[in-house]
């Protein structure tokens, strides 16, 4: 077991992402909902971390907080040593663009773009020249079995293909951190395994840090560290011998 509280907090820059007493409270009648309650978390570069827990345990909210998609009600988040919780929207968007990749449960590819255009989307926003973008996308597509589908729109792709494109989109910008919210939830076993293989491979080969939220035991099995959330709190952390 390895918790962040069992030792003095390491310097922020030693972590891909770190949180300190993170709270998220949604104002609601009759009582505010405390979705995340004092979470302290530290994820080292290259880790393959899985957050598990029942529905409503706050997994997705923690991911959103880590990725700067929502602001904490209390506490702080650092990405590569930079505190992002109080950054202006515009700067936060830049941080997401350059340092954070997202993979969503329902793929969420942009339907008007082709597979290739979706995958290169973040590279394009980063200002990477077209030739270099295309080269990187094709190389990755070849690695993850997406060759030949570059010009297809998402509706012409299978769920597994769409999720692999989403993973490609998340990692191509070479982020410090990829946040994946239930990435296998809509996939059959074989497709889910294949996708996890891809992510493990990227983690291993590129040192990309992954933080998952999931119910899926197959994902949990591969984790280098498993964090169980219950009622918005970290209930348990287990270090295993998975990826990372």
């Amino acid at each position, binding site marked *: 077991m390895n918790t962040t509280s069992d030792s003095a907090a390491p310097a922020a820059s030693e972590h891909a992402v770190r949180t300190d007493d993170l709270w998220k409270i949604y104002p609601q009648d009759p009582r505010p909902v405390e979705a995340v309650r004092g979470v302290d978390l530290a994820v080292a570069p290259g880790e393959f971390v899985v957050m598990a827990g029942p529905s409503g345990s706050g997994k*997705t*909210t923690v991911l*959103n907080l880590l*990725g700067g*998609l*929502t602001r904490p009600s209390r506490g702080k988040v650092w990405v590569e040593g930079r505190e992002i919780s109080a950054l202006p*929207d*515009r700067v936060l*968007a*830049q*941080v*997401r*663009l*350059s340092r*954070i990749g*997202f993979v*969503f449960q329902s793929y*969420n590819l*942009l*339907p*008007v*773009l082709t597979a290739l*255009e979706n995958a290169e*989307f*973040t590279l*394009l*926003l980063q*200002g990477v*020249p*077209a030739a270099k973008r295309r080269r990187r996308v094709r190389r990755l597509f070849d690695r993850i079995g997406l060759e030949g589908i570059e010009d297809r729109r998402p509706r012409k792709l299978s769920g597994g293909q769409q999720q692999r494109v989403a993973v490609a*989109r998340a990692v191509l*910008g070479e982020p410090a951190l990829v946040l994946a919210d239930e990435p296998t939830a809509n996939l059959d076993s074989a497709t889910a395994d294949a996708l996890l293989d891809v992510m493990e491979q990227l983690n291993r080969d590129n040192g990309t840090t992954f933080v998952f939220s999931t119910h899926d035991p197959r994902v949990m099995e591969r984790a280098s560290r498993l964090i169980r959330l219950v009622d918005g709190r970290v209930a348990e952390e287990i270090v295993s011998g998975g990826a990372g």
Partner: protein
Amino acid sequence: MSRSTRDIWWRMAWRNLWRNRRRTVLTASALSFGFVAAVLVMGFMNGMMQEMVSNGTEVVTGQIQIHAEGYRPERSIHGTMGGREGLDISALVAAAAAQEGVAGVAPRLYGGGLVSSGDETVGAVFMGVDPAREPGVSRFASVFVEGGMPGPGEVAVGAALAEKIGIAVGDEAVLVAPAADGSTGNDLFVVAGIYRMDLGGFDDSYALLELGTLQDFLAMDRTRIHEVAISVDRVRDADDVAERVAVAVAGLSPDLVTEPWSVFLGQLYFVVSLASAMNSIVAFIIFGMAVFGVANTMLLATFERRREFAVARALGTSGGALGRIVVYEGLLLGVVALAAGAVLAFLLLAHIHANPIDLSSFVGTYSFMGSAIRPLLTVEYSFQEPLVSAVALLGTGIVSALLPAWRAARLPPADVLADR
């Protein structure tokens, strides 16, 4: 922003536009219809104004007039060009006629007096004309119901005047008028023609005489006239032609004043200017209404895509870039609508221009401010109105997109992704 990034926003906007083809076609159709309506209404308005100006200037006045300074508005009998000495009328007419854009030039002399026959007498304006030149400027020669233009010793009168005093072609009428030398002119003239202009003032109180005849009758030298009326090839060029004529005749007498119709028919010019201003208001109303409809549709469209916007935000797209995509969509929608509307508007304008719509069964015929209005709904080709409408249409597309763009830019990504 790099070119690639700009390209992808435009590409996304264009593809988004066609995701719901039916909705885009309907919305673009509404905008196209607005464009066609604006162009047509403005075209009709211009056609009507053009008709009014044509009638107002082609019936009698011409589009340009030369007078002696101070002649208008009193129109004194002594206010002849060149003073009491007069001037070389032939040279004046020739100088004006030589200018580019001039179609016809007619010298005129005016007097006022009485026309009598038997026991009947009416007041009348005596108009001395050059029978050969007058048809090039006014419609008198073409509206004779009996006889024709007067020669020496003859008079032509309007139908209403002839009826009042009971004269017909071939009869004699007595004309009495104060002459320029203080005497009273009094003579018998043979009725050479009766015209019907269908404009009250001209039919019941004008009498035409040959120019030399009236000069003699009013005891004036053959060098004296009050007016030179000029018609132009294109009414809209009247101001420019007037300037050229003014320069050309300036050397003939220092007291000459050359004016376009917009000066001597000031009221008519005011109405035409008002109509022109109305065109902008019409465009504003039509496209103002369209803004609400298009904005509503675009709001709906962006609401349906809020999840995509949230994903794009999560990936690091700025709110401003998302807003820009929506504005681009509005602009592209405008361009599509404009392309369709322009084709439709051109076809309709060409058809109506060639086949004016006859409204006589609804409104009959009428005159307004001395202008005979033909009940024909016609349109005039113009560059300005379609351009104004096109700018208004594209502006409508952009303005309609502003609120949806603002909302897209401000979507909270986590809430939207969680369907909260």
